[in-house]
């Protein structure tokens, strides 16, 4: 096999099934430490550096010091997935022996006391630490959404909100998309109580996917299907397990560090989602 062998630290659970049956792999986009591959159906597979959190459709690699995908991988380079190996000129990696990242599936629950506790916990602990950063960092429209939700006591997003959010804002994954991912992550918590609303939001997002870029659309589709990053899972599990405040803050800070503003927008959407479900958690 030609080139350097990159060690796979872990692979997302949605890559668990051998993806070699999916054809037409090619390079979608290259960054210094991240490489996106795409198949014939437009599904993305992301190669992340080992320091990044796990994602459902990503694998984390140990990259050599100084490695830059922009020089190591040509956009037109052929990509072959065969017998558990991913090959391309200059590099390959072996998926099969890698540890599979599979987050603990959190039981959706309409436990009302829990929801209120989680809301209170997040408010008291996380908001005190990060609320000013969220207020300063989120684009105007997101700030308005939060203000309106607080003022009206009615935080469920509408179809109109979704239309305005998809593709809105700065960053490779626009802020509005990140906000929706965070919102959906919070709604997962409540389960069947808001199932209809969650499905409606998902449907509305699907209709708008053409309004955002392919990379962001990929993460929105994962979120609609209930798949989230490791950082989001860890924050949710910290809430559900009533972790100590310092753990909660640590998990929230970890999410905040992602990207330039992605983490901020995601956490803002998550908080909005918790507000949204609170009225449905009345004792």
């Amino acid at each position, binding site marked *: 096999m030609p080139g350097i062998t990159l060690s796979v630290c872990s692979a997302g659970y949605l890559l668990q099934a051998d993806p070699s049956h999916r054809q037409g792999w090619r390079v979608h986009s290259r960054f210094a430490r991240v490489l996106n591959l795409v198949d014939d159906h437009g599904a993305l597979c992301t190669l992340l550096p080992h320091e990044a959190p796990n994602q459902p459709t990503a694998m984390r690699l140990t990259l050599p010091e100084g490695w*830059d995908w922009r020089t190591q991988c040509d956009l037109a380079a052929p990509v072959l997935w065969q017998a558990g190996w991913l090959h391309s000129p200059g590099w390959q990696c072996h998926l099969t022996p890698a540890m599979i990242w599979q987050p603990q599936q959190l039981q959706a629950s309409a436990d009302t006391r829990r929801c209120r506790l989680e809301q209170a916990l997040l408010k008291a602990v996380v908001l005190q630490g990060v609320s000013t950063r969220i207020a300063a960092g989120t684009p105007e429209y997101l700030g308005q959404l939060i203000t309106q939700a607080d003022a009206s006591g009615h935080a469920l997003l509408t179809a109109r909100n979704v239309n305005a959010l998809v*593709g*809105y804002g*700065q960053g*490779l*994954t*626009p802020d509005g998309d990140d906000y929706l991912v965070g919102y959906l992550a919070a709604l997962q918590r409540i389960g069947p109580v808001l199932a209809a609303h969650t499905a409606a939001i998902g449907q509305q997002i699907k209709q708008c996917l053409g309004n955002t*870029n392919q990379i962001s659309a990929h993460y929105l589709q994962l979120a609609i299907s209930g798949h989230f990053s490791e950082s989001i899972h860890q924050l949710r599990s910290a809430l559900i397990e009533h972790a100590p405040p310092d753990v909660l803050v640590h998990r929230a800070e970890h999410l905040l560090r992602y*990207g330039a503003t992605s983490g901020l927008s995601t956490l803002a959407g998550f908080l909005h989602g918790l507000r949204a479900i609170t009225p449905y958690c009345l004792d």
Partner: protein
Amino acid sequence: MNIRNRIFPNMYQDSVSLMQISAQIAGLDGIEQASVVMGTPANIIQLQDAGLGQDFKAGPNDLIIAVRGAAAACDTALELAQTRLTAKPASDEGDIRKVAPASLAMGVETMPEASLALISVPGDYAAAEAIKALQLGLNVMMFSDNVPMAQEVEIKQLANRKNRIVMGPDCGTAIINGIPLGFANVVKRGAIGVVAASGTGLQEVTCRIDQLGEGVSQALGTGGHDLHEEVGGISMLYGLQALIEDAATKVIVLVSKPPAPAVADKIMARASAAGKPVVVHFLGAPRDALAPQGITFAHTLGDAAEVAVAKLHNQPAPASIARLADADAAKLTALCAVLPASRKDIRGVFAGGTFCFEAQLICQQAGFVASSNTPVAGNKTLADLWTGHGHTVVDMGDDAYTRGRPHPMIDPTLRNARILSDMADPATAVVLFDLVLGYGAAAAPADALLQALQSAPRGPVLVALVCGTEADPQVRQRQVDALRAAGVLVAGSNAEAAVWASKIARQQANR
């Protein structure tokens, strides 16, 4: 006021880069407003609302740079953004370092000539890594502790089948082919090989050999449990055999606490058939035990080195160094003359577990029963970990003192505090302590203590041993000189230091 924009089709840049570009062009003189966004419908509306243009021929996967300001500034801003977005990253193929191995298998692939894996992971995971290393044909040094005995047995039996050695678990010291591993000293290379189930025991013996002008061929650690009946001395037997077969090794030294009887028999049988002199020191073993043919028993760690060097020169074994020379007795008597009679206690404060053990044995032989967190047979278990009462000899490297803290050899802070505390106790006649030098140990082990001693009221006598060599980073003589300048008595070995401490306590007890 001019408005310009530029579209970059299918341009994906990470968000941090986009933010940096946006900030850079927005900060240019003459630029009133700048925006760097993906060409989504929502963002295009925002650009239009902000007056940054009307007609953007861009889709969601395209990047838009839009600026408003002076004409020249806008052109500059767009050129700058283009340069940043399209610049090829510096090709550093030639500088790319090899893939950092993320597994033992990768390590062996990268370095096929490697013959040893040093494992230092939490005990729960160490056995699995050791097995992987053995399966790859490597010898193993396990720094990890808290490995269950059953796992140690499994690993060592596998090593036996593979004709490899496992040094450990809880093996912190070895010298292989002249290379110090873990906590180890820089010693001359020579003809004396050592196998030890004791880290500081290995250090004391190898340093003493060096001080006597000779050198070490190999120094192998076995871990503290190797000579338990369950483990059967697998690693010591392997190490012994390896030194027997090593042409460069002319004399072999074995060090351990007393093994299980059946294990001792196996070791003695192998040692007596070595065909070269073997010096055996089992701490605490009966002094009058009869040594098999070819074996010489040593009674202290220092003696083991002295006897080994004598054997190398075909000389008779010297008398034990654990005896009080007349000159030393006189000096100690004079010191006791100015000690209040109320001061009677020995307080031993050790970083090295084996030094603590040996000191207890020697003080016990002198008639002093002490309390310790690691008591030898006949001594008592400490009731209070943090305060000495009566004769107290503590191993501050034990888990009780190191949970969540560095070992005192690395960070002597806690140990120094204990010394000062014992000094302040009006019952203390002598404080006995060790200073262990070498790789892994604190860079200036005596400094903090000596600084504290300057202002501390002096009461008891201070006796120290300095385990190290002149070639160690800390330079043994430098530490000895500093301690002596501060009024500390520095003995030549741990045994001698304990003998001195016992003499002082005996002098005080008789008052």
